[in-house]
Structure formats: C-alpha cells, structure tokens
C-alpha cells in the first residue's frame, strides 16, 4: 500500500512525509514533483496507490488538470484524492469538486497536522 504525494515543492513533500511517518501510519510513500509525473506513476502502479495527496499550483500540469484526468480514467477514479493547497476560497474548493466529484478531501495550507492525519486515516489504516 502506498501514498502518492504530488507537489512541486520539495519542502512541502518533505513536510508531508515527516507528518505521515511521525503519525505511526506505516505506508510506503512515493513522490512526484508535478502532475505529469504523478499520472505516470499512477499508470504504472495504480493498484498499489491507496491515497493521493495533491497540490494545486504546479508547473506543466496543475492539480486541477490531474483531478480531471483521474476522474476520466476508470482505474484512477476510485483512488481517493486529498487536495492540499494554499487556495482557500470557496470558489477554488468548488472548482476542485467540479473537476473530481468524488474528491476525498480539501485541506488548506497552512494546515494543522492533526487534521491531515485524521483525513489520511480515513483512507489508510
């Protein structure tokens, strides 16, 4: 079982890994630095991915484009996605929900680590 982190910020990826590992959740973490790379990883190992933690603003392919691509693909559609972004407005949340109606969560940076762990635990035991 793996968690896929898709975020262009190396520091944000490191922070997420630190939070997950210190929470006691035992899971392998794979990383992608943009949406394009994230979709490639999904296409190679979608069966093993239990959860995707997805940033919004990324070069090459944004988080919204990733959500749209995932919702159109039968294999990817069932994988839960938590969007973690600095875009806090209600319009942004709605745009994410429109892109992927089954979005598992939407977390605004800076987030409380307890809240993130709580959301992850809903999908990864």
């Amino acid at each position, binding site marked *: 079982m793996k968690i896929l982190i898709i975020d262009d910020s190396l520091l944000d990826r490191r922070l997420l890994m630190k939070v997950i590992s210190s929470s006691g959740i035992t899971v392998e973490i794979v990383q992608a630095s943009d949406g394009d790379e994230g979709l490639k990883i999904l296409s190679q190992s979608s069966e093993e991915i239990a959860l995707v933690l997805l940033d919004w603003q990324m070069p090459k392919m944004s988080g919204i484009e990733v959500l749209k691509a995932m919702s159109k693909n039968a294999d990817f559609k069932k994988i839960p996605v938590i969007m973690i972004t*600095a*875009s806090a407005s209600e319009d942004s949340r709605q745009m994410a929900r429109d892109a992927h109606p089954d979005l598992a969560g939407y977390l605004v940076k800076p987030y409380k680590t307890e809240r993130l762990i709580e959301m992850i635990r809903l999908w990864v035991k």
Partner: protein
Amino acid sequence: MGEINPHQNFKNNFNQDEHLFIESVTPEEELSLQAVLLAEVVKRLLETKANLKLSEKPNIQKQPIVEFRKRMRVVSLDKFPIGSYISVVNFYLNEKEMKVHKAIGAIVVSVAEDYISFLFKKMEYPLIDDDDPAVLEDAVGTLANLIAGNFKAGITQWGYQDLAMSSFRSYKNDVIDGVEFDATQKEKYVISFIIRGTKMIDIELTLGKVPRNQAVAYKRIIKKGDI
C-alpha cells in the same frame, strides 16, 4: 514613493461604526488596501505558523514599476546586499489567460539568504540544507505559494473575483527575464517585514483591475481593526 498610512488615507471613508465600504474607494486606493491586506496575511502567517512576532509594523511603500521588454524588473540586491532568494507567483483572471500568460498581477517574495533556514525551522519544516541553492529556491517558492494563496482567498472574501494562480518560479538576487504583469499598472507596493530587528522578508505586489462580484461586494465591509 512614500510610506502608506492606511488609517489616515482612508479615514474619510469610515462611517460611524468605523467600517470601510470597499465600494467607496478609488482604484488607486483599492491596490493600497490590497497591499494592507497582504501585509496582514504575512503577519498572521508568521504569527500562527512560525510563532514569530514582527519587530515593528510592516513598512508599506508605493514605488514606480520599472518595465523592461513588457515585464516588470525585479532586483533584490539593493534590498538585501548580502544576497537573497526571490520567488514569483502570478495571478490571472482565469485559467485560459494563464495559459497565454496574460497576467493581471504578481506577488514577488524576497527573503534574505541568511534567514531562510531560520524561517523554515520556525515553521516546523524538516531541516533544510542552506548550502544548496536549489533547496533555498524551493523554500522561498513554498513561502510565496503560501502567501499568494492566502492573499487570494482574502481578496475573494472582500468580493473580488477568484483568480487563477501560477506555480512559483524562484531565482537568486534578481529575476533576469523580469516578471509578467498587467502593463496598465505603473506602480507597485513594496512591503518590508522586520523580524528580531532585521529585515528578513520583502514582498512586492502589483495587481490590475480585478472584477468584483457585486452581490458579495455590496455586503462586504472591512472592520477598522482589519487594517
């Protein structure tokens, strides 16, 4: 160029309840208010995320935009002679305009090189290698994304249309190819943040006319305490 005192500039717009109606400000005052909001966003982020208090109020100054080949020049060496890292996030009216690089504005975050590691440690990020330029560029970009996203949410709450936001692009000391901006804008705001007696962060804001959702805007007011 001059320091902005928002309370003095807009005091005539406060009603008896000491509220400021956004509808009553001029386009020039609008950007000034947005600069005040940006300063408040950064102050709160530093307080809540890094447990850092500013040594003094953010210094907000209006400065002319220096244009070079239709882009805004950004040089940070005069602000931080010891060196700094700069990160740029652009705003667009929508995703379509982002694809064709028709920017409506930009936030440019410069952080003194010697304090990047300190700031991120305070924000409880994993330790960073402050000898690695790529890591430092990433760190300042991460901060710029955080600031720009929270600023964007703030102006949306004031009734402005939600904007599309770019990913960050980071540089050392200057932005060689300049920054995309709305060429109708001739001035920008520069906000300096002093922490522990030292200027650590400098932020530039340029923003063109952003449409407002009137249904929201007519109800939206700013409490005097907010600025």
